[in-house]
């Protein structure tokens, strides 16, 4: 869901880029955060709570709260709210702590 017309703001949208979310091809606009792109597509669940195993999504969207940590190109604990989308990146839902060792 994106805002097409706004009474005050103009959104400069440039190139569309494709990337992957849990194996599915998704898209966003170049320059926006991974979180913004996923949110616009209605994808709001980004990881599982460390202890609760419950779904977690965005909270602060400015890189401070750690609620939206995901695995991006194999790197766990990536703050997707401050990480820009790039063509072809692989974004995966993070299970509790993520695993870097396995990838190496």
């Amino acid at each position, binding site marked *: 869901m994106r*805002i097409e017309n706004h009474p005050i703001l103009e959104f400069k949208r440039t190139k569309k880029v494709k990337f992957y979310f849990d194996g599915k091809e998704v898209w966003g606009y170049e320059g926006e955060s991974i979180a913004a792109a996923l949110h616009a597509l209605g994808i709001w669940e980004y990881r599982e709570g460390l202890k609760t195993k419950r779904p977690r999504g965005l*909270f602060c969207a400015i890189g401070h709260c750690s609620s939206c940590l995901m695995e991006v190109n194999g790197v766990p604990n990536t703050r997707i709210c401050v990480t820009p989308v790039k063509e072809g990146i692989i974004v995966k839902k993070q299970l509790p702590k993520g695993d870097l060792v396995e990838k190496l």
Partner: protein
Amino acid sequence: MKNYDILIIGGGPAGISAALAASKFNLKVALFEEKETLGGQLVKQTHKFFGSKDESAGTRGIFIAQKLINDVNNKDNIDVYLNSMVLGYYEDGVVTALVKGKMEKFKPKKIVIATGAFEKSLPFENNDLPGVFGAGAVQTLMNVYGVLPGKEVLMVGSGNIGLIVSYQLAQAGVKVKGIVEISEKIGGYLVHASKVRRLGIPIYTKHTITKAIGENKVEGAIIENIETKEKKQISCDVICLATGLMPLSDIINQINCEMKYISELGGYVPVHDDNMKTTVENIFVAGDTAGIEEATAAMLEGELAGLYASYELTNIFDNRINEIKERLKEFRKTSSKVVSGLKKLNLYNDFTVNSQEDLGKLHRTGIPEKESIESNIPKENKRFAIIECYQKIPCNPCVSSCPTNAISMDSLNGIPKLDTNKCIGCGNCVAICPGLAIFVVDKESVLLPYEFLPLPNKGDIVEVVDREGKFLEKNIVLNVRKMKDKTNLIEVKVSKEHINNARHIRVVK
């Protein structure tokens, strides 16, 4: 290792203002910003700022941010480090930072910390569900990326952020189901409250949220009256928390500056003097990091910290330092909360705040008392402005906007008074008022500010609504003045009986 005179941590309004102040002395300045862009939270603020002309009152936050960013980029002696996170400060004065993924060392003579704030959450059942977002997150999605946060939003908190973001949500086309406020009075500026009430958004005072409903996503909320314990279920896909901010003080803690818990300032704040100096030599703070206020105070504090740090380096005392201290005092004249916080830091000891009177119904509902409304209506039968601004807040752009000097105010924190004999009903004040609290009433028409889409055309039939967003009648648009700053002016025909209640229009599709 790179040497700098002043290193500033945080590229928001406070940090930028500090950098610009220091650059005046030809000092070598480094400005560090963790993200890809400067401007901090100011780049999301689409509303017009209060204050006086000196503080860009009547200008939207986004435009203030643009100007600050341009100014920084045009200064040769400010090195801007984007995507660069400051990691730590060492006893030998070395600062380490991750600059675009690589660790680098810096040695500054002075440091200004302006790292801003962090959004507070609220304890209630299921508050971890996706769909429970901080107000800043909602603003980022819709005002930075143009992404709709959801379809239906319940706002929690009626401070300025809760009220402003509710209005912004409505502008983006999102339905705001209500604003929940635990105290008996609305927390933010009442002109902001009146703005959202006109849209038909209810404000539930003495209510709190007790539960978010939903399995994997928010589907609704339970709110409760804290006195009667009566519960109410509200369907929504987003619960937006505007329940306050906390200073972001990790780096200040690491430096070992003395901290103090001051709830009025948002939590742990660095102990500092009136020149923004902390208890550690050469370390200054500014903006929300130093105690939660708003962007205008942040810009003034940033400038003050930048000037004072420069003074310590150059021995040149800029008289603007004293001027800023006076401006800040004027700004804080009605902020009893901030001032009582500052007193706990041993600042503002002899300062007395103008007491805020209880504005009765207006404070509880966002709708003024009948008597206040009637006191505005002059006896003469002519075209004139109606100023629905009853609360003492630091704001005065209406005064200077008037071509006939019909509006007067005894101080920045005064209440505007209109001389109806001088008023020509031009509507300049309607266009400039940051609170959208001024209207021009004629015999059979009302001129009102309109910041929504679609914009009606002259001759269109629209719905005329009252201060609660309730339908009064359908009538014809007489004139549309498109304004550069996008607060357009609509003059709508209104029948006599509704003249004193018609305060907004709805365009029927």
